[in-house]
């Protein structure tokens, strides 16, 4: 009897500890920031959001993240296809390399891109000769975002390609479909869910990226100042309200994307 009671006390202790940890660590901060953004009333919140620098930063971030997502959807689909369907020397190595951007610290990524594109580098000099600069301009931000979000689409498409029955493809060929028709009508529809969910995750990560971008963006308001760097600047200059307002905008977009992806994946699993 006493041991049973003891067991019950233990499990109560564990349960409350874990739930408390979860609530304090994850739920409090997130609700806290929504609460804080409205702490000085709606009008202050609206003022901070309609501040031209703030919404320009958010719009710029969305624009660059969209370009990044499109690049990665194309390039990632191609890479996933090649890595799964073709056998060639070095395939395993490339496949392990895919995760490198997730493993590398973002500040290190920023430094890498800074070195690669800097004025004294090969790429920098070429671009200079052609009459434009990459570093501290929008292309550098896109390159940084493409790098950090590179694995998402590949890792989402690969399992679908592995699962895919080759019989559908063979049937299409037997019925006389050309390679292009087979690709567009049979293979692509099969990969599409992976491409979409990978692309959405990449988009949400690109929106949030800070470390890789802060070192290579010029941070000129309206031109190369993205939302996360704007938030950092506002924190540094003690304008917490401005920082929270933009944070809330960014967070809401990211949460919506995350939940959409989860919902779609859950429906696919159950359906």
């Amino acid at each position: 009897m006493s041991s049973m009671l003891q067991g019950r006390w233990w499990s109560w202790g564990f349960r409350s500890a874990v739930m408390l940890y979860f609530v304090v660590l994850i739920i409090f901060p997130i609700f806290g920031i929504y609460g804080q953004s409205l702490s000085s009333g709606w009008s202050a919140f609206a003022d901070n959001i309609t501040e031209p620098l703030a919404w320009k930063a958010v719009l710029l971030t969305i624009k660059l993240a969209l370009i990044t997502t499109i690049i990665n959807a194309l390039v990632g689909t191609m890479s996933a296809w090649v890595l799964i369907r073709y056998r060639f020397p070095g395939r395993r190595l490339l496949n392990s390399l895919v995760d490198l951007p997730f493993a590398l610290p973002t500040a290190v990524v920023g430094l890498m891109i800074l070195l690669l594109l800097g004025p004294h580098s090969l790429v920098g000099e070429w671009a200079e000769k052609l009459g434009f600069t990459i570093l501290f301009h929008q292309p550098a931000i896109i390159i940084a975002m493409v790098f950090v979000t590179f694995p998402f689409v590949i890792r989402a498409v690969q399992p679908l390609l592995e699962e895919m029955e080759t019989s559908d493809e063979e049937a299409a060929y037997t019925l006389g479909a050309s390679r292009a028709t087979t690709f567009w009508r049979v293979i692509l529809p099969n990969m599409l869910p992976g491409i979409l969910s990978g692309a959405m995750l990449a988009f949400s990560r690109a929106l949030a990226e800070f470390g890789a971008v802060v070192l290579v963006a010029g941070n000129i308001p309206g031109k190369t100042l993205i939302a996360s760097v704007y938030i950092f600047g506002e924190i540094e200059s003690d304008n917490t309200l401005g920082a929270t307002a933009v944070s809330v905008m960014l967070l809401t977009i990211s949460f919506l994307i995350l939940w959409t992806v989860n919902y779609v994946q859950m429906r696919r699993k159950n359906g």
Partner: protein
Amino acid sequence: MRRLWIGLTVVLFGLLLIVPVVRIIMGAFNEGWRGFSDGLSRPETLHALFVTSMIVVIVTVVNTVFGVMMSLYLVRATWLGKRIKQLLNSIVDLPFAVSPVIGGLMIVLLLGPETALGALFNSAGVDIVYAIPGMIIATLFVTFPLIVREVMPVLQEIGNAQEEAASTLGASAWTTFWRVTWPSIQWSVVYGVVLTVARSLGEFGAVLVVSGNILFKTQTATTLVYQDVENFNLTAANSIALVLAAGSVTLLLFMEWAKSRREVH
């Protein structure tokens, strides 16, 4: 056609992934071995590496314990309703969607020196924000989903038949966990731990906001890289970056090795 696609992919990987890493190695050694070792043996580097390793150890231990228990509860608990489990499950992922800077800002807002909680801790003699505890909390927040996301699918897959058999045969909850559940989830826990170590080693945005980046006090390896770049001290920045990159690549290789080993068995 086939050749073209393979060629394109190889070139892409080379340009996007391999060249940047090579560039960091070259940058670290552009003043020879001396420049590299000088960059690393500066007292601020040693201190920053110490702070980073301390955070990595504490965060990994705490989040492993809580992460494994959270996954167990989210999959198995009968004392949580299905709806609540679903809700908690979708909240677990939120830190992935939060920009690191915003994660840091949240902690400053809740525990900063001007807040009620912050003042309370401060009067007790503990600083949270602009000190180590805040940096640990920020890293805990950022890395929380990693272990849960690795362990939960495995728990769902193995089902609870064996666990129920064990407890019917009179095993205590504790014995059941260590003898039945643990052996089947241990590798997923290892993956989760590797990811957590890698992420907390490299966390930058959240830590930068919370730490204030104070030299010899709250500076971590990544925030020191940032500061060195801002001060145009590129060789030193590259040296630290190389050490960090080597650490994360080693972790990545370990993970690949563990996964391929498990596939064979």
